[in-house]
């Protein structure tokens, strides 16, 4: 008997899959557990707010819009597994995610095979869009601009001469640190060391090296959970060099962990403090009301990413009176222009945002968020499409 049930079930599921359901799911994929959950949750909540705002309108059009939050644990293997699960759900029409470039790249290879649109609110690695996939777009700036922007500020404005570069050996951290190094050397500073470390609690060996090479500036390419501890231990051991890092440090947790040591630190970020976005004020209040938290780092980008998808969906449904296929939606998202809370959103031929903002933030006091020391609007570089596989 058991044998005869299985094909029947398969047919039933197949029928379900091909039937036009009126549910549209937008998935968010970001770390919701593990060490980077604080950043990942902001992406999810930002997108959730956008989806909840749009739900009544889709109700009127006869569709139910849903958010499908997924956890990639900041782990490439988990990210790919989640991606494979998402592509099999026909109701999932778009993905907002990921947080980590190292996770986004292998996962997006899966999305590409199914033409599932992915709008990235946080991936700054150049390779995310340099592959020129039609279904991959991003709202934030790129590391090959973020690193150099930091280096320019460090050498020209702060006068750094001997720079000690540390990175966390991930695609993101090492990538941005390398770009920083190239630009800093070009500007005439001496990079006295370039080291990677996966250490999380005890940085003494690294700090002893700093004692020996006497840097006046330390650049850390990585995420706050490492960076804050490193900074704290540096100050405990009397290393006074100025500290700077990329947007991985952009979290209230950075200041919380480093404590007083955070005073005087700099970070560059592609998502500035919320008060840098005049249009985000109303959204920030709504966010706080809904979730009881202040939107941080990538929350507003998660919000805008979801809104780009929603705008594309809406315009398609209004014209065609049906759900778009994934490929149709991908094409449409690339052409969509909206005026989001992070400014005007429009994509270039590879899926990069046409003009992205880069912020240099100074923590004058040990308090998050810091003050913006400099804002640089920078057009996406016109790089040649290349495959990284």
């Amino acid at each position, binding site marked *: 008997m058991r044998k005869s049930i299985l094909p029947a079930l398969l047919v039933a599921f197949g029928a379900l899959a091909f039937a036009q359901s009126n549910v549209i799911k937008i998935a968010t994929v970001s770390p919701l557990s593990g060490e980077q*959950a604080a950043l990942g949750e902001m992406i999810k909540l930002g997108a959730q707010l956008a989806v909840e705002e749009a739900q009544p309108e889709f109700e009127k059009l006869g569709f139910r819009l849903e958010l499908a939050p997924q956890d990639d644990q900041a782990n490439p293997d988990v990210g790919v597994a989640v991606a494979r699960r998402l592509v099999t759900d026909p109701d999932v029409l778009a993905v907002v995610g990921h947080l980590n470039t190292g996770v986004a790249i292998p996962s997006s290879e899966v999305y590409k095979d199914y033409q599932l649109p992915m709008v990235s609110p946080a991936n700054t690695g150049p390779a995310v869009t340099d592959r020129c996939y039609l279904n991959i777009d991003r709202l934030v700036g790129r590391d090959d601009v973020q690193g150099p922007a930091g280096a320019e500020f460090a050498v020209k404005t702060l006068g750094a001469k001997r720079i000690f570069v540390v990175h966390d050996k991930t695609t993101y951290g090492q990538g941005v640190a390398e770009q920083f190094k190239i630009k800093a050397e070009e500007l005439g500073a001496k990079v006295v060391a370039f*080291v*990677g470390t996966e250490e999380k*609690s*005890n940085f003494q*060996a690294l700090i002893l090296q700093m*004692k*020996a090479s006497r840097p006046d500036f330390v650049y850390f390419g990585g995420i706050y959970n490492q960076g*804050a501890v490193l900074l704290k231990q540096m100050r405990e051991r009397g290393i006074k060099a100025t500290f700077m890092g990329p947007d991985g440090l952009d979290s209230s947790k950075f200041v919380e962990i480093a*404590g007083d040591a955070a005073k005087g630190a700099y970070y560059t970020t592609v998502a500035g403090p919320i008060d840098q976005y005049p249009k985000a004020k109303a959204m920030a209040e709504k966010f706080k009301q809904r979730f009881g938290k202040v939107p941080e780092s990538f929350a507003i980008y998660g919000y805008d990413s979801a809104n780009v998808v929603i705008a594309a969906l809406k315009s398609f449904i209004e014209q065609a009176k049906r759900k778009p296929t994934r490929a149709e939606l991908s094409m449409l998202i690339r052409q969509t222009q909206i005026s989001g809370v992070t400014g005007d959103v429009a994509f270039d031929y590879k899926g990069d945002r046409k003009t992205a903002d880069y912020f240099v933030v100074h923590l004058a006091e040990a308090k998050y968020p810091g003050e913006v020391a400099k804002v640089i609007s920078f057009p996406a570089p016109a790089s040649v499409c290349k495959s990284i596989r």
Partner: protein
Amino acid sequence: MFEVLISLLPSVLLEGLILGFVYAMIALGYTMVYGVLELINFAHSEIFMSGAVAGAETFILLKGTIANPYLLLLVAIIIGGAVAAFVSVSVERLAYRPLRKRGTTNRLVPLITAIGASFFLQDLVRLIEGLWNNAFYRRYPTFDAFERTYNLPVWLGDIVIILSLFTFFFAIVYLIYWVGVRLARAKQKRPTRNTLYALSGLSILFTVLFSLKYREVLTTDMGLSIQMKSLLVIVVSLAMLFGLNWLVNKTKLGVAIRAVAQDAQTASLMGINPDVIISRTFLIGGFLGGVAGVLFGLLYTLVHPYVGFIPGIKAFTAAVLGGIGNITGAAVGGLVLGMLEMLGGTYLTFLTNGAMGTEYKDILAFVILILILLFRPQGILGQQVGEKV
């Protein structure tokens, strides 16, 4: 270059000492359980973590109530230790004892159970912390009393350098002698006392000559300093080590533990209940793990449900290196591993001219570990014991 290597040495050894004591504290728990049950309790890293997290919560809750930091630390140590002891006893009661009662003879079964318990505890703590605080990164508050730095006198650094030089020369001289004896196929393989005196004298001569020649370089003072919290780690771990040795060797409970370790069946004929004794062993081991967790958190600030993994693995290694089952051996193993790690982490970069950075520190430490175990498979202080009958 050479100047840098030498002048850093006292600080490197001091940091290695502190790290070594941290490993030693955790290693005590592994070695105790192994001594009694011949079980590698992989859940010990999570018992350690639960103590660290409980300590953080205590600090955060009672910071306003108890003004004296030392009293607060004492309370945190007791609560952290108690929570860890409770977790440890529960793991034994719920996971290991049922397996023992079923008479499982396969050693792999409890081992796999330990790994499972480890994962379970990680996510249990994550769940509890998530529900309670909506975040699972807990930061130890900083107190001026613990952060205070004491400068150590210059002559202490000089003594350390002299002693290290002596050890270095002695190792080389002894190695040459060892090879020479084997090449000459002499009958007397172990060195006599007079030979040892001669070798030491030769090393002292080398040390004196070397010190006189490089006097200028050797007195370069990099500033040797230690923080109060590091001192606390050293004091508490020494107290733990001596206390445990006293408990095992001098008390009735210790006699019972040793009896069960030797032969549980015969011990039970003598009126000892092995289950009770095993439970007590887990209680003590868990308490020590919890205390280690609180001090770890105080030292390195940041704790979270996954914080136990790396220190746990290192401490397990230390226990094996020192001779698993041997309490003093665990401390010796911890110190050796800590020193090796710090030496490798600091010097590899300089010795390889930047080709191998701090990230390779574990390679050096573990290569030496393998070498030591090749020549002494039972560990540094371990004794070769026959298979139990």
